């Protein structure tokens, strides 16, 4: 929503100083970014369970992820796969930022994460025990391991980050909404915040839950299963993983001599859509306009848009409408790197923010893979091959099932005063 407030002093602008990414096309920030920049997809046939009796065939799975290689043994029996991703990525992000929380006051850091599905595979296993063997066989860890808030809690405990934290549950918009909530924590005096999102939907119960939205692709060919904005778009592919980042103010980052400042979280906006039956249009463009105004920028300043890429008729139409309303037809490069990971739900938008920051760092727009045949009603400059470009400001759009819209502007560090 547009609200007037005192402009943030430039040195208090929130900046990202550490990243940790676990995505289907790369485990680790460098692996993810190399694959993403080069157009290497992580989509493939579902291997994590026997998929025969489900109408879905393709997903983004993180191959070769072994939790015990990355997190303490003590945490494995009590954590869902999504929480394991969250723990791995938060550890990487802290290390990348050069932050050792144990050397700081215990309330200096906090955690705000997004999650859309809960510990869905954990839930599934315990329901199986409950109905298959009886109530005594349900693990005590079920009391918290299933819960949306567990990732924030486990990261907080593991790294002793005792500042006021939070959890955001806004579907695929969550990754951006969490970053915005982390920004509020910085304004309230938090020294740094671990923020991002995690989800692990590739299990029977997770897929079943998503099937209810009627937006999953049923195609069996990984190359054509997820084609946002394409003439033959037919829904999305689910993906698993997490992205966590360290957010702190520019002044704090400079004062402690942070090695890397990936860029700034320059502006944010969020809206909620009208009821579909109302016939009223999506409010996505207002979320984007709010983010631009919050960043003190205009449309002409934006060098690239990372689109949500629903790959449904209504979703693509609403997003194209928002983009062309702000930028005009083919008025700005648009990309959907999540065509290489699938939609990662709570992790999806945070992963896009990471990709945007790395794109700005390297001055290259990562490609959209697969979508090639855009009909006339999608007049977008869709980037389908990695495109070198001077990038100062990127707009990330994110939409969550049920009506959530979120937009965030990230800006290059050199653009900061």
């Amino acid at each position: 929503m547009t609200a007037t407030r005192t402009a943030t002093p430039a040195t208090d602008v929130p900046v990202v100083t550490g990243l940790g990414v676990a995505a289907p096309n790369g485990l680790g920030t460098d692996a993810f970014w190399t694959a993403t920049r080069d157009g290497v997809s992580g989509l493939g046939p579902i291997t994590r369970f026997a998929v025969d009796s489900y109408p879905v065939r393709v997903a983004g799975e993180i191959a070769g992820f072994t939790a015990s290689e990355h997190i303490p043994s003590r945490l494995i029996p009590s954590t869902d796969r999504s929480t394991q991703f969250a723990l791995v990525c938060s550890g990487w992000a802290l290390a990348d930022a050069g932050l050792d929380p144990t050397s700081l006051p215990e309330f200096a850091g906090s955690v705000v994460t997004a999650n859309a599905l809960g510990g869905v595979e954990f839930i599934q296993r315990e329901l199986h025990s409950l109905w298959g063997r009886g109530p005594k066989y349900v693990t005590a860890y079920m009391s918290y391991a299933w819960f949306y808030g567990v990732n924030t809690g486990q990261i907080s405990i593991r790294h002793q980050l005792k500042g006021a934290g939070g959890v955001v549950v806004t579907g695929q918009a969550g990754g951006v909404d969490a970053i915005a909530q982390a920004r509020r924590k910085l304004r309230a005096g938090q020294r740094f915040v671990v923020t991002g999102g995690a989800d692990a939907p590739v299990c029977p119960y997770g897929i079943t839950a998503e099937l209810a939205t009627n937006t999953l692709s049923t195609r069996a060919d990984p190359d054509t299963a997820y084609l946002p904005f394409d003439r033959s778009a037919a829904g999305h592919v689910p993906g698993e993983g997490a992205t966590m980042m360290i957010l702190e103010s520019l002044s704090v980052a400079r004062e402690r001599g942070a090695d890397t400042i990936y860029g700034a979280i320059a502006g944010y906006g969020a809206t909620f859509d009208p009821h579909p039956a109302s016939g009223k249009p999506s409010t996505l463009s207002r979320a984007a306009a709010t983010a631009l105004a919050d960043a003190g920028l205009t449309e002409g300043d934006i060098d690239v848009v990372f689109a949500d890429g629903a790959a449904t008729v209504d979703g693509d139409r609403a997003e194209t409408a928002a983009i062309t309303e702000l930028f005009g037809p083919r008025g700005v490069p648009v990309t959907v790197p999540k065509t290489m990971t699938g939609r990662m739900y709570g992790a999806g938008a945070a992963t896009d923010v990471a990709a945007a920051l790395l794109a700005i760092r390297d001055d290259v727009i990562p490609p959209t893979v697969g979508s090639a045949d855009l009909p006339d009603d999608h007049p977008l400059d869709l980037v389908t091959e990695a495109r070198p470009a001077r990038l100062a400001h990127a707009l990330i759009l994110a939409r969550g099932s049920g009506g959530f819209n979120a937009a965030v502007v990230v800006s290059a560090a050199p653009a900061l005063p």
Partner: protein
Amino acid sequence: MRTSFDLDDLRTLLRSCAGEPESIDLASDIADLTFEELGYDSIALLETAARVEQDLGVTVEDNVVAEDITTPRDFVAYVSTRLGQRPVGTRVS
């Protein structure tokens, strides 16, 4: 039918139910360390106690876990004593 329960049995259960401690080798002499020192919190012990009931048919009540059992030696003593007293007909999986 299992008739004994020793420290190695407890080690196996802890490993499976709650993972290995970060700083202490579970295979070392842990009998008289507290579970807190070993890094096992109350829920890890509840989980382990639940598994004892499933595997051996010995019930370790929640309040016993919370109040009376502080070391692996306590845990083993509690379970092994009651193993011998198991009523006839108790189901053992």
